[in-house]
């Protein structure tokens, strides 16, 4: 039965991937990517990876689609029909795929118990983690204790990516004032009262669920990464329904920038404190008198740091995309191009020239028509 579910889910994934290749409308592509994410999350549940499924469902089917939609609204939603040498690409892909399939021939069969991957560290994690770390969820104890240094590096990567988006998309502060004298435009959030009322009632529960996932991660699926994304999703929902300006008034962007840094620092400083207490970097045993209590304290603190950084970075990324988009719409409406670089001005000029030549040709054809009538 499980095999049947496997096969069906994997076939769906292939069908959706092929549909993504063939679709030209990028909006549809993003929707298909969301379905793809949700399907792979269901597949992870079948394969017993509940923590991974949790993360993939909130990231692959949620945040990533949202960010892509925000990007598409700034870059246009149709792909140009021409392609680059599909035959050569197909050749390269077929050769690579063939070699990879050849490589799988001597792999251990799917689900086999004596595969090499299950022989080295996994038995130690499964048999001894309860005595050594005292947390029922083995994934959490590996993530936050055995491989904590690894996770620290990953949180640093997420933090750096947030900084990168900030430096690429952030707008100069002084431009904020332009909206004050502008009459409020009719946005989605000003029309749909049902959505606003319902979501206002739902957002506190989403935040509460995020906190549950954060602090229950030791005992069930969950942890800082998932909680951070869910927390960010609630605030992004607020920003979408009540407008970016209102959201920024409640959740200031600089506060989130501070929180992103604080999360990473909290994580690293737990390591430094354990150094000062005579242990190794990120060795939580020395944090309290009882090693197990020390482990619990360490895991709680670093998961909190992870949650802070992930939530703040996701919110920073979304706010910057949405802010950029509003500024672009504003500038095209006002016809003042001060926000956008001179190159775009040139393009706009080109397009107006194009319009005038089109007009000329139209006039020309009219005169030609008239002449014909005269004749």
């Amino acid at each position, binding site marked *: 039965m499980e095999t049947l579910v*496997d096969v069906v889910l*994997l076939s769906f994934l*292939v069908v959706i991937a092929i549909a993504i290749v063939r679709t030209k409308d990028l909006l549809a*592509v993003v929707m298909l*990517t969301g379905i793809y994410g949700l399907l*792979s999350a269901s597949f992870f549940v079948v*394969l*017993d990876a509940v923590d*991974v499924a949790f*993360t993939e469902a909130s990231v*692959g089917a949620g945040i*990533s689609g949202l960010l892509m939609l*925000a*990007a598409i609204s*700034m*870059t*246009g939603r149709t792909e*140009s029909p*021409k392609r*680059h*040498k*599909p035959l050569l690409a197909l050749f*390269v892909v077929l050769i*690579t795929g063939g070699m*990879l*399939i050849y490589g*799988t021939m001597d792999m251990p069969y*799917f*689900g*086999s*118990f004596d595969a090499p*991957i*299950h022989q080295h560290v996994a038995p130690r*994690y499964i048999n001894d983690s*309860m005595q050594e770390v005292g947390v029922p969820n*083995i*994934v959490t104890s*590996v*993530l936050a204790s055995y*491989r904590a240094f*690894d996770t620290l590096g*990953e949180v640093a*990567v997420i933090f750096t*990516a*947030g900084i*990168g988006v900030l430096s*690429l*998309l952030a707008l100069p502060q002084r431009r904020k004032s332009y909206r004050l004298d502008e009459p409020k435009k009719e946005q989605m959030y000003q029309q749909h009262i049902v959505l606003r009322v319902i979501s206002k009632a739902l957002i506190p529960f989403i935040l509460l669920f995020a906190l549950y996932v954060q602090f229950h991660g030791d005992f*069930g699926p969950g942890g800082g*990464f998932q909680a951070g994304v869910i927390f960010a999703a609630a605030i992004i929902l607020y920003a979408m329904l009540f407008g970016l300006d209102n959201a920024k008034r409640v959740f200031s962007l600089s506060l989130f920038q501070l929180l992103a840094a604080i999360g990473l620092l909290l994580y690293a400083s737990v390591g430094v404190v354990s150094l000062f207490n005579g242990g190794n970097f990120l060795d939580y045993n020395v944090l309290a008198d009882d090693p197990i209590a020390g482990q619990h304290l360490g895991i709680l603190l670093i998961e909190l740091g992870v949650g802070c950084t*992930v939530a703040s*970075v996701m919110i920073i*990324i979304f706010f*910057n995309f949405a802010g*950029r988009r509003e500024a*672009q719409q504003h500038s095209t409406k006002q016809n003042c191009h001060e926000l*956008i*670089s001179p*190159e*775009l001005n040139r393009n706009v000029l080109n397009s107006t020239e194009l319009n005038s030549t089109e007009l000329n040709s139209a006039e020309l054809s009219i005169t030609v028509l008239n002449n014909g009538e005269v004749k």
Partner: protein
Amino acid sequence: MILGLYNYWIVVLLMMIGFYIVIAHGNLIKKLVGLTIFQTSVFIFYISMGNVDSGSAPILAEGVSRYSNPLPHVLILTAIVVGIATTALGLALVVRIKESYGSIEEDEIQIQDQLTEDKT
């Protein structure tokens, strides 16, 4: 035999579909979607390797003796969040490219680059 390696073959197929999108499509957003598909197929590969027949999710419980391998779960769980952060960085780059070139099609960008090179 066929069912034993079926997962890996599908993973290779998905990976190649993503790879094809990356090299054969000119639209930068479509390329990022292709990368996402490639990435997800690697995730599926790792999780498939960690699976154990009639195993259980790696959360310790009474009366369960066989668990799936938790190590790939940990690696992929963090990789997913790192992946969305880097994808967001890529999308931000695409937005900036659109602002300065007025297009996100690879060939149009290349033509504009060559034009400016010829001028200088």
